[in-house]
C-alpha cells in the first residue's frame, strides 16, 4: 500500500514540477512572446494604450504589466486574439483608452491652410508625411496608420481625419 502511494505521489510531484518548470518562460521565450504579441498589434504607434508605441505595449503585456483591452485601433478582434495568445479572459476594448474606429481613417492636410512648419512631420511615428520647412506638407494616405499624433501639434489646425481611400 505504502510503496504504491509513495510512487503515485512521487510521479504526480515530478510531473507537476516539470510542468511548472516548462511554464516558466526563459529569457529567449519571453522575447519571442513579445514578438508574437507585437505581431498581433496593428502597428498604429498612437500611444493610446499609454505606452510609447506598439512594441512597448507588447513588452508590458508579456510582463503582465498591461491588460489586453488597451488597444482601440486593434479593436475587439485584437483584444480577443491577445486574450487567446496570453491565456487571459477575453474582454472588449476599454473605452477609457479610446474609441474603436468603425472604419480605417487616415489624416488629411488642408493644403490651403498649411504653413509648412514641419511640426506634424516631426510628430508622425511612421514618417508618413512628406514635406520640409516652408514647403507644402502632405500625408501619404497608404502609409498613414491613423494614429492622430499629427493633429495636436499643428498650429493652424489644418489636419483632419478622413476615411481611408480604397
Amino acid at each position, binding site marked *: 500500500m505504502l510503496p504504491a502511494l509513495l510512487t503515485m505521489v512521487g510521479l504526480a510531484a515530478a510531473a507537476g514540477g516539470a510542468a511548472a518548470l516548462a511554464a516558466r518562460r526563459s529569457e529567449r521565450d519571453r522575447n519571442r512572446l513579445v514578438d508574437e504579441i507585437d505581431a498581433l498589434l*496593428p*502597428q*498604429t504607434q498612437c500611444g493610446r494604450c499609454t505606452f510609447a508605441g506598439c512594441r512597448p505595449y507588447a513588452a508590458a503585456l508579456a510582463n503582465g504589466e498591461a491588460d489586453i483591452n488597451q488597444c482601440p485601433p486593434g479593436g475587439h478582434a485584437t483584444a480577443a486574439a491577445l486574450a487567446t495568445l496570453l491565456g487571459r479572459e477575453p474582454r472588449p476594448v476599454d473605452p477609457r483608452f479610446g474609441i474603436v474606429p468603425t472604419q480605417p481613417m487616415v489624416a488629411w492636410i488642408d493644403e490651403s491652410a498649411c504653413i509648412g512648419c514641419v511640426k506634424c512631420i516631426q510628430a508622425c511615428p*511612421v514618417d508618413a508625411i512628406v514635406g520640409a520647412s516652408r514647403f507644402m506638407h502632405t500625408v501619404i494616405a*497608404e*502609409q498613414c496608420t491613423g494614429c492622430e499624433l499629427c493633429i495636436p501639434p499643428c498650429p493652424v489646425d489644418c489636419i483632419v481625419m478622413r476615411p481611408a481611400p480604397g
Partner: protein
Amino acid sequence: MARSAVRGGLRLSAHKERSTEQPLRPASAVDSLVLPLDQQAGAPAVPLVKPGDRVLRGEPVAEPGGEISAWLHSPASGTVAAIEPRPAPQRMGAPTLSIVIANDRRDEHYASSSTSRFEELSPEQLREAIGRGGIVGLGGAVFPTAAKLSSAARANGLRLLVNGAECEPYISCDDMLMRERARDIVLGAQILLHALAAQVCVIAIEDDTPQAAAALGAAIAEARDERIQLRFVASVYPAGGERQLITAVFGVEVPHGGLPADVSTACLNVGTAAAVAQWIRDAQPLTSRIVTVTGDGVREQRNLEVPLGTSMAALIYDCGGYTGRMSRLIMGGSMMGQALPHDDLPVIKATNCIIAASALDLQLRGLEMPCIRCGNCSAVCPAVLLPQQLHWYAAARDFAALETYGLMDCIECGCCDYVCPSQIPLAERFRDMKPALLETLTARASADAARTRFDARTARLERIERERDAALAKKRQELAIPRDPPAQHSPRLGGKS
C-alpha cells in the same frame, strides 16, 4: 505524342458532342449592341465617343482606362445610342456603364491602319500593336493580352504555351475554333512568339478531340515552323487550368503568389491567339467571339460567331428559342459557370458558353450535412489542398489557419464540390472567404510596413541624437574646456583675486 496528366481532377462527361455536330455560323444581326466598359480585367475603358456619334464596324469606341485595361471596338456600324448603366453578366445582372450602339445593319468597316509585316516590328512595338486590337484573354480571365505579354517578356528563356485544353463540360468553342481556324491559331502563335521574343511554342490540347488534333497538326505542318509543336494532355478536368496545364506540359510548378512568367512560360488561350492573328493580319480588332450555345433548354445546340454586345436572349432566339424544359441560364461551363438572373444581358469578351440548363443538365444539390472528413475532396484537388480542413477553418473564420492551408491557392475549379458526399458547397465557400482572407493579409502587410518605418524612424532619431552628443563632446574636447572652469577674474564683477 507524349501524354501528360494533371494531379487529382475528375473525369467528367463532356456533353460536347451535341454542340459540335454543326459547323460554325455567324449569329444573326441584332438591332442593339451593349458594350460594358469594364468587361476586361483591370480598369474600365474610357469612352471615346458620345451619344449620337456615328461609328463604323471595328472603330475604337473606348480606350484603356489605366495601365491594365483594354481598347473596345464597335462590333457593327451604326450610331451610339447611349452611354449609360446597363445590366451586365460579369456583375450578375447589376448595371455597369456601357456603350449602347444601334446597329444600322449596313456593316460598314472602319479602315484600321494597316500593320507592316509583324516580323519587321520590334517585340515591343508588336505588343503595343496587339494591345490596340482590344485583345484580352479569351479563355475566360479576359486579362489584357498586351499587358500580359509585356510582363512576361521580362523573363529569360521564355516559352509560349497555347492553351487548347478545353476541359470544362459543355464548352466547345475552342474545339470548333481549332477545327475550323487552325491556321489562325498557328499564325497567332507565330505572332506571339515574336512579341515575346520566345523560341519555343507548345499548343496543348486534350486527347479526346481528334478533329481538332488533325486540323492543328495539318496547320502546324503547313506552317513549317519548327518552333511550334502539338502536345496532348489527358482529358481530366481541370487540365486546362493555367497552372495545371503548365505543370502537365513542362513539369514545373508556378510558385505560390507568382506568375507563369516566373517559370519562363506565357500561357494564352487558342482563342486569344486566333484573335491576335485576325487583328495583325486582317486589321480586324476583337469585335466578336465564338460562343457555345448549349443545354437541354435550347432548341439548337451549336457554336456561333457572335458580335460582342449581342443580347443572350437574341442569341437563344437565333438558336431556335427555349424548349419547354428550360430552367436556368448559366454563363460558362457546368463546373465554374455562373447562373444569370435573366437573359437580357450582352455577350462580352468573357462569354465562352451559354447553357440553357434544364433539369437534365442540372445536378441539384441535396441538403448540406456536416463534413465527415472522408477525404474525397482532397483526393481530387488539383492544387493539392485539404478542402476538409479549409472548410473547418472557414467556418471558424480562422484566417491564420486558412493561410497555412493555402486558401489563396484554391483555383475554384469545383472538383471538391462535385465529390462531396455531404453536399457541402465547398468551392462557393472558399470563393466567399478569399476576400476576407485577402483583407487580413493586406492589413498584416500594412502593419508590417508601418512597424518597419517606425523602427527606422526611431533608429534615425536615436542616431541623430547620438551624433549630436558626439559632435558636442568633440567640440568641447577641441576647445579644451576643462570640466571645472576656474573662477572668472573681472573687476566689473568684483571677482575675487
